[in-house]
């Protein structure tokens, strides 16, 4: 890695440890590749969310009596996809920086973000279906 995580990495010492306090050294390439695969997996999740949102808006039959029902459900999924794509890139660079500094990896916010938003959209879907059935 030369530019992920910003900053020019310092050369590692002979034992693989940073040459001096606060210095950065390249992590094992296997860790970097795993970090890259995690980013790609989140990107595919983001694409799936966008596809799901677009599918809801375009393919689902309209909810009777709820004209904006499909958009209420689909648009948050599309936005969530964009947010996850950006967050995945941010976390990838943050994790790479932590590995270069020999620090523990910070906790990811994406799983909580994804779970919370999907739970909210599920509740919203239930409300739209019930509202549509009542009308």
């Amino acid at each position, binding site marked *: 890695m030369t530019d992920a995580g910003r900053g020019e990495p310092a050369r590692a010492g002979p034992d693989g440890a940073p040459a001096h306090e606060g210095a950065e050294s390249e992590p094992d390439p296997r860790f*970097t590749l795993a970090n890259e695969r995690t*980013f790609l997996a989140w990107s595919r999740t983001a*694409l799936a969310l*966008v596809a799901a949102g*677009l599918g809801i808006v375009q393919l689902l039959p*309209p909810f009777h009596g709820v004209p904006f029902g499909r958009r209420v459900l689909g648009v948050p999924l599309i936005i969530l*996809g964009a947010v996850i794509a*950006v967050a995945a890139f941010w976390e990838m*660079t943050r994790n790479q920086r932590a590995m270069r500094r020999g620090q523990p990896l910070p906790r990811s916010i994406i799983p909580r973000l994804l779970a919370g938003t999907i739970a909210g959209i599920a509740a919203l879907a239930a409300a739209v279906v019930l509202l549509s059935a009542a009308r």
Partner: protein
Amino acid sequence: MSTVPPGQDEPGIGEPANRTRLAWTRTAIALAALGAAMLRASVVAGVIVIALSIPVWAAVRRIGPAPDALSSLAALRLVTATVVLVAAAALVIAFLGHGPGSLSELLHGR
């Protein structure tokens, strides 16, 4: 980093590098599939998304036999920008597409 003969993986790197190449390929396929699905709603947007899947697929070639980590962030930035662009196009289709409750319907009073 040790010197490795051309065309050979550094010891212990071959399998992780292969898994990463496959992950890039899956991402490119997912992007192309979404582009194909978008063709139904918007031909222009669909073609653009399919075209963007080509450089993502080409990013596989970046991972050499002995990767010295991410040599460039350009490919990763490209994936992020592409997903955001696809989401923006999907939002435009969602709001400006035809159908009950769409903005075009409201604007035209239909």
